[in-house]
């Protein structure tokens, strides 16, 4: 089935929860090369006035698009992706944090679709204007 068949504006195409732990942050630090200690050291985070160790914004951006990639299933590709980092994700050393992502069709045209993401921790959104342009293959 082609990507655009039966797709409607407003339709939720994917939803997923991402449990994060400090391990997740350390793994992302290693893979990305972003070793800012606010992402793994409580003392450094506290010293610069943060409420705790934070997930890298780019980690959140990185996994938030994955439900869309899974939904595409090689029928299309992500040709443009943007987010605004509106609120930090605090990752507790013991219980971690859970980010829930929902992906909804925002607009449709002949070549693909705009998918709008919401990413929330509890009741609070952590990304703004999170938009994925998907282009049919």
């Amino acid at each position: 089935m082609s990507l655009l068949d039966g797709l409607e504006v407003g339709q939720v195409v994917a939803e997923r929860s991402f449990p994060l732990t400090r391990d997740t942050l350390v793994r992302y630090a290693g893979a990305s090369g972003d070793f800012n200690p606010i992402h793994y050291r409580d003392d450094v985070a506290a010293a610069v006035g943060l409420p705790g160790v934070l997930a890298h914004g780019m980690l959140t951006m990185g996994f938030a698009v994955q439900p869309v990639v899974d939904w595409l299933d090689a029928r299309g590709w992500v040709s443009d992706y943007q987010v605004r980092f509106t609120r930090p994700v605090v990752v507790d050393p013991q219980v971690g944090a859970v980010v829930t992502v929902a992906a909804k069709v925002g607009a449709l045209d002949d070549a693909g679709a705009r998918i709008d993401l919401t990413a929330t921790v509890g009741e609070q959104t952590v990304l703004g204007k999170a938009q994925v342009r998907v282009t049919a293959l």
Partner: protein
Amino acid sequence: MPVNPALTERDFPPVAPYLVGREKVREFARAVLATAPLHLDPDAARAAGFADVVAPPTFPIVVAEATLQQLLAEPDAGIDFSRVVHGDQRFSYSRPVVAGDELTATLRVTSIKTLGGNSMITSETAMVDGDGAHVVTSISTLVVRGDDA
């Protein structure tokens, strides 16, 4: 020290080419909790018509890192990295990045704004392949918090 507004007129040389490796793509894919076979399995990627594993959408940030270092290394930039917060980020593609690509990145600072004591620096890092064809541009806005922010 405020961010130097003259950075927008500066020409930055391209950074050394970055060879996208299969295992690096897979490592990065696991780090962003990717599960799509396209990012992890060369056979699945080939079946979908790609030469090798496809990099996750945010992978080019790894390549852009060298251009960020270039910006921070400017002696008169006025950017205190301990006060920098990532404001927004965008990736605009001409085609997906796949393992085997050799990407050459060039930085351009497109705007510097000051708002309530904070500075906002927007930069674009354009990446071209070995043939010089555009692959992706990473657009970042960094917020440098002022002393009172």
